[in-house]
């Protein structure tokens, strides 16, 4: 396996200190274990636009965008100004600020299905909360979810077998194949009258696998079944939200959920999440007590309001789509030039590239290491994100770097079979 301990020496030095006082050193999704141990940066020094610099001074064009939150560019002056103005007044206190009402009104106008909104900090705050609302509303227990889907790391969302998860945490979950309407309907039939809700992503973005777009009629079929059986349709739009369609990713796919959860791109990196719902769900939402110390802090809400306005003003969704399409086309062309077959799946704004043969990500891991070494951060196992700060020149540079990375992959693993 490739190691580059000179290039990342400050990262590694800092990590050695961390490992003595923090379990895992760096835990959760930012662990270097799932990127490239000893061959990728571990710590950031500074950020700007679509780039960041690690603690060794290495510069990167960023295709993770902090795993989604950065959508306009790091340190966006208008977003930061809105946050600073709010900070001068109040952030956290015994009460929320006026900004909470302004943001709630703005979101309710922006997203057609939204008759109400609640706020939190992380996406998982909202997915957890949504399950409680669905269960309270229906007085049922079971939740249908997709195999391989990610909805956070609460015990129910982590799934059976994970450390700290007991049988009781997952006994009311029913797993189905995302995109398979027949399987969904069979599950509903098998547990008729017992399903409180179903939580699904607008398109499938599982861990360690290609992304899958909804088959024709899938969402319309799910909606119909939910209506007939009294099941609450919860959309987890945390990863894709505000990148595919400002009014909600469901608008792109032609259906309406009962509840939709947002986080990541909602405030360009300030810590905020939100859940919107239809009038039907309002009283149940108001009945469930769920909160957190920092949930109603004002500064991230000010940042969010600014972010949402800029997203619309600058037609960011369209720009991200265009830049994403350029990237995808360039990667496919470069791969082909080296007799390598790649699959770039998912929407252009949140695409994910895998190599067609092997299936074990060894070639993806090498590709990422070589690209990261040359200043482009492509994650080997997780979908990528494009932002409004990625300009054509950044995309072109990234494609050129990908060319060199593909050359290395071809050298080590040979052409695709």
């Amino acid at each position, binding site marked *: *396996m490739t*190691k580059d*301990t000179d290039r990342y020496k400050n990262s*590694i030095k800092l*990590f*050695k200190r961390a*490992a003595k006082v923090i*379990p*895992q*050193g*760096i*835990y959760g999704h930012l*662990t*270097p*274990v*799932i990127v490239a*141990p*000893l061959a990728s940066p*571990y710590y950031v020094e500074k950020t700007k636009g679509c780039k960041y610099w690690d603690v060794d001074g290495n510069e990167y064009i960023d295709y993770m965008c902090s795993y989604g939150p950065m959508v306009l560019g790091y340190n966006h002056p208008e977003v930061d100004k809105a946050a600073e103005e709010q900070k001068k007044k109040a952030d956290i206190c015994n009460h929320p600020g006026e900004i909470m009402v302004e943001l709630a009104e703005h979101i309710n106008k922006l997203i057609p299905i939204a008759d109400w909104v609640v706020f939190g900090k992380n996406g998982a705050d909202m997915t957890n909360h949504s399950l409680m609302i669905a269960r309270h509303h229906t007085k049922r227990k079971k939740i249908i979810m997709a195999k391989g889907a990610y909805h956070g790391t609460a015990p129910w969302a982590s799934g*059976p*077998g*994970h450390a700290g998860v007991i049988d009781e945490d997952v006994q009311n979950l029913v797993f189905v194949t995302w995109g398979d309407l027949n399987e969904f309907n069979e599950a509903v039939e098998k547990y008729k009258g017992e399903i409180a809700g179903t939580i699904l992503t607008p398109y499938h973005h599982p*861990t*360690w*696998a290609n992304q899958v777009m909804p088959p024709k009629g899938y969402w319309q079929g799910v909606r119909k079944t939910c209506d007939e059986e009294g099941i609450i349709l919860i959309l987890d739009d945390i990863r894709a939200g505000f990148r595919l369609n400002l009014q909600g990713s469901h608008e792109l796919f032609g259906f309406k959920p009962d509840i939709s959860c947002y986080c990541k791109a909602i405030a360009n990196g300030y810590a905020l999440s939100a859940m919107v719902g239809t009038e039907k769900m309002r009283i149940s939402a108001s009945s469930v007590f769920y909160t957190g110390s920092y949930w109603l802090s004002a500064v991230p809400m000010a940042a969010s309001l600014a972010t949402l306005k800029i997203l619309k003003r600058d037609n960011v969704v369209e720009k991200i789509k265009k830049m994403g399409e350029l990237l995808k086309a360039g990667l496919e062309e470069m791969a082909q030039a080296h007799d390598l077959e790649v699959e770039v799946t998912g929407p252009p704004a949140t695409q994910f590239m895998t190599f067609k043969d*092997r*299936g*074990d*990500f*060894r070639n993806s*891991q090498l590709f990422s290491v070589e690209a990261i070494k040359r200043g482009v951060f492509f994650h080997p*196992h997780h979908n990528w994100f494009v932002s409004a700060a990625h300009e054509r020149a950044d995309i072109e540079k990234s494609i050129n770097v990908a060319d060199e990375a593909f050359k290395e992959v071809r050298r080590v693993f040979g052409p695709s079979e």
Partner: protein
Amino acid sequence: MSENLVKARLFLYAILPLFEEIAKKDKDAKKIVKGLKGIIQFSAPDDLAAQVEFVDDGIVVTPGKEKKSSISLVFISHKVVSNMLAKKGFGMPLPVKGLLKLGLTNKFEKIADILDRYMNEKNPKGEARDLIATLLLYAAVMGAAQVGQADESMADIAKKVPDGIAHVEIKDGAKGGPSVYVVKKGKDFKAVKGRPDDYNVYLGFKNFEIAYAMFTNQLDMMAAVALGDIELSGSLAFVEQLAILMEKAGEYLE
């Protein structure tokens, strides 16, 4: 019952192979096996079988019934094997063949006692620690394959393991240390001592000290990977599920 079946498989295919290492590395065991010749055939219901061959001043363990045995020991049920592992109830099974070769089983039991001593040793040092790390490596990985193959309670985990080969080893300088790999194909898991020609996931422990710490739950594994004390590459989906199977094997063997 699935648990007894799993324990029977663990005994035959994850514990018995450890006798090879004891015979190679422990000086008392070397004396016991020196010049010894013969084959003990272990069998249990559902075609479970393994041979322990005393040959070339050592022990070779092979699954199945390949060669003609000197003495044949039959477990009448998986529960009997399970009890033996837990040291409950009736001990070694009655021989159905080779009554005159009972001396072989006496030698086998002496090696088993040596193995037992190593597996219960606390704070080992030097060569003892290295041998224990080796035994734990093989028991964990070969045990994981048996759990994946037969444990109904782990069926959902086993299903998530992608087809492919996982190579796990303890690096020991240029000469290479103990090495084992798991082949998963369809519903089947198979563990083999040695190095595969290719692999889909690789887990390499920097040295015996790291491996011992890992297998005795004294190592922050994620930090170790990030620091390079454990080398990890390839299918993280495979290793994620394999780790769960290894942990379950460890629970059975405690």
